[in-house]
């Protein structure tokens, strides 16, 4: 099946591991990703806090650029996903606003009819469109003995309902089970990581991050798996700062779920972006999976 692919800015550099692993896994699962030609930044949280109309127009440009033959768009980043979906929703719920946005798009020779493109997240594409049977069939290295904590964050499950339960989502739990891993059922899997609070107020942000790491540790998880670059950055990039702030000793690898998916599928860890994370994941993986990983050293 063909999908338009919207990587978003984070996946270009910071979350390159996410982009690489998404592409590798998509290839194996026969998910044809066609990157949108000349896509632009979705504005993350910044634009929307300034001017809603401009922000929506900027996002709508991407929707308008989707190949007319393709009906579905996949955005691996949670913020991009939310912004794209939110804009599409606003345009259809508020036709006047939709008309104004199309006026803006017209300046660039573009037009978008709300509802024409269905915005999806990589997780629900794999969970719903590919499904259990197909995923299990591709597993060559079951993740037996690996205790994984699926982390959903906020933006994919809230505020727009429909993609999984808002309070207790299970898609990633299911997916990880299909890979043979031991899924850790810990209580904060859909609690906020702090998002941009790291830029605004470190103590608040660090506390939110600490709670996640603490809970995963209490439940003896080997690693936390994310579906959003911000969440991954917060828990991985700031883990040392959190340790310093609270005098804790967290040493939890934080990866993208597609990276672990790739390992189970027998793909090369290098190609899956391993080594880009700050809290090294390979030592834990090699220890837990008895060294049975692709030979490529990281």
């Amino acid at each position, binding site marked *: 099946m063909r999908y338009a692919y919207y990587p978003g800015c984070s996946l270009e550099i910071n979350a390159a591991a996410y982009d690489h692993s998404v592409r590798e896994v998509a290839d194996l699962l026969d998910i044809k990703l066609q990157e949108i030609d000349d896509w632009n930044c979705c504005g993350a949280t910044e634009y929307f806090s300034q001017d809603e109309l401009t922000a929506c127009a900027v996002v709508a440009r991407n929707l308008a650029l989707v190949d007319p033959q393709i009906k579905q768009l996949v955005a691996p980043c949670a913020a991009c996903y939310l912004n794209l979906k939110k804009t599409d929703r606003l345009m259809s719920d508020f036709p006047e606003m939709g008309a104004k946005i199309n006026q803006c798009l017209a300046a660039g020779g573009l037009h978008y009819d709300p509802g024409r493109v269905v915005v999806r997240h990589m997780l629900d594409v794999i969970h719903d469109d590919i499904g259990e049977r197909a995923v299990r069939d591709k597993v060559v290295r079951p993740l037996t003995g690996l205790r994984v904590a699926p982390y959903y964050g906020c933006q994919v499950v809230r505020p727009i309902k429909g993609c999984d*339960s808002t*309070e*207790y989502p299970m898609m990633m739990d299911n997916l990880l089970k299909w890979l043979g891993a031991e899924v850790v059922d*810990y*209580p*904060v899997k859909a609690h906020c990581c702090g998002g941009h609070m790291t830029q605004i107020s470190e103590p608040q942000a660090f506390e939110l991050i600490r709670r996640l790491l603490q*809970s995963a540790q209490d439940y003896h998880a080997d690693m936390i798996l994310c579906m959003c670059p911000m969440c991954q950055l917060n828990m991985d990039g700031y883990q040392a700062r959190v340790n310093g702030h609270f005098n804790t000793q967290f040493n939890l690898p934080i990866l993208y779920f597609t990276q672990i998916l790739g390992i189970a599928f027998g793909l090369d860890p290098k190609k899956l972006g391993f080594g880009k994370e700050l809290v090294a994941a390979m030592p834990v993986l090699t220890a837990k999976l008895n060294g049975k990983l692709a030979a490529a050293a990281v």
Partner: protein
Amino acid sequence: MSEKIGIYVCHCGSNIAGTVDVEEVARWAGKNVEDVAISRDYKFMCSSLGQSLIEEDIKKEGLTRIVVAACSPHLHEKTFRQACENAGLNPYLLQMTNIREHCSWVHIDKNAATEKAKALVAAAAGRVRHQRPLERMYVKVNPATLVIGGGIAGLQATLELADAGYPVYLVEREPSIGGHMAQFDKTFPTLDCSACILTPKMSEVGQHDKVTMYTYSELEEVSGSVGNFKVKIRQKARMVTAADCTGCGVCVEKCPRKVVDDVFEVGMATRKAIYMQFPQAVPRIPVLDTANCTYFTRGKCQVCAKVCPTNAIDYTQKDEIIEVEVGNIIMATGWKPFDCKRIPQYGFGRLANVYTNMEFERLCNASGPTNGKIVLRDGKTEPKSVAIIHCVGSRDTTTNTYCSNVCCMAAMKFGHLVLEKTQAEVYSFYIDVRAPQKDYEEFYQRLLEEGMHFVRGKVAEVTDAARQPDEAGRLIVQVEDTLMGRQRRIPVDMVILMGGLEPQADAKEIGLKCGISCSMAGWYTERHPKLDPVATMTDGIFVAGVCQGPKDIPASVAQGAAAAARVAGMITKGQVMIEPIVASINEVECSGCRICNTMCPYNAIDYDGEKNVSHVITALCKGCGTCVAACPAGVISGAHYNNEQIFAEIEGVLWDAHGNGAATEKEFVPVAAG
């Protein structure tokens, strides 16, 4: 000779007159509709003065047909038919047209609504001219009644009818009657022991000579109509011969196989493979759970048969279909508890010491799994604080939007029991505290005095993820205290979820067997929500108790008694009127193709093999018209709905489109098509 039609347009106060110019409609009808002798408007046609108007006019003016333009026939067709009858006119020479629900209540544009009302009146007048006098039919009412459901509502209905001397068949799905009330500990607000007030009724029913009980039985099939229903009941195989069993209980005592009791004990205790649901079970006859019996699953054991002193165990017993004939049916099928796992953030099923309300009832109950001691799942630790969360699965757009009626009171009851039996603090988390009935508010005041803490806020989550040292190892309730305007985290040892009431899983299916429907939420639809809560749209089928909507024990008892009273009234009257609005087949022209036989949804058409014609059983016919439409030769006609009448009605509605027909004056400019 042409008819003399009387037209009466009702104001219904301002309900109709507020949108429709009723005086204009009456004036217009009098001037423009053919054969109209009288055309009036009046404030309240349904009042005795309004009815007298019709009666006087019929007598004085010799009216032969009546049209009443007012509310829905469901409300007052009977009233106006009676008025006609009082004046000596056949009641089926009346046509009522609805210019309230179908006109004034659904339109805002007064001009358009008035024009529509005129069209409706013209239609009714056109039709009524072709109506013929019809004679009502009467069928005898069988004095026996079927009560489906042996909970408190069903028991009350059963006793009322049986005490009045009428036979009752009581069908109950579980091995014992009693319903959910048998599981409760105490009842609010009196704090009576639930079993103590229930079991006398259960005994009475069990011993009553007018009651035939079928427990461990299901409703299989219902046919017939009011006064004469034929019912098939499936009595499931208990593997015990009831006539020989003395209820001594030795088989239960000696049975080596233990099974988790997830029905009566809500998964909190075990029972044996052969069991009686609870000590006071009626009838006192055990049931063998063949799915979990060692003999049935592996061919070994048979201890129960060996120890039974009267040889009452019968492993060969089969389900039996029993047929009974009754005049009326009372549905009292009750409810099932909301599955608290559907709200995962409250932790039921995941966090050990989160209980549902039903689990807590069993915990408190002296004959429950802990003999009434309030302890945690480890069986010994007494909680130091207990949280009670209201509205779990109720008043919730993601699960059930309705209020389950009883949970606030039950929550207070639980609070009281915890405070009485332990040293624990009790916190109740509510949206509103609902205590509307007699002595309920006083009960709430009592709890406030006893020191129960009431926090107004919907709990966000119950978690074991501690953030401070003093939260470690406890369950934390995270809530916004809306009266304080602050977020609170309250560590407790036990959480009780007040799960809501839901319709039985097969309520819709069972309802369809009897020909009644359910609301969107799944509760049985009563005939009128305010004025007729125990009758249904199907004559002869009544509802009582929670199956009609969440309610407490007093209300269930009242409805059970009310349904019984309605049935008793019909039995006393001895006969019930069948509307003559039935189909009839022209036997001369019928070719015996039998298409109508299979199409009839009420099985009201049979076939005469000798004459090779089909024949309508008028007592069963509901006048739905399916056969009339289906007959390929067009030889079936529906009384009161024949082609002439229907076409005349259509012409009346379109009076302005063709300028002739029922009316002569074109006062309306039709909108151009396209």
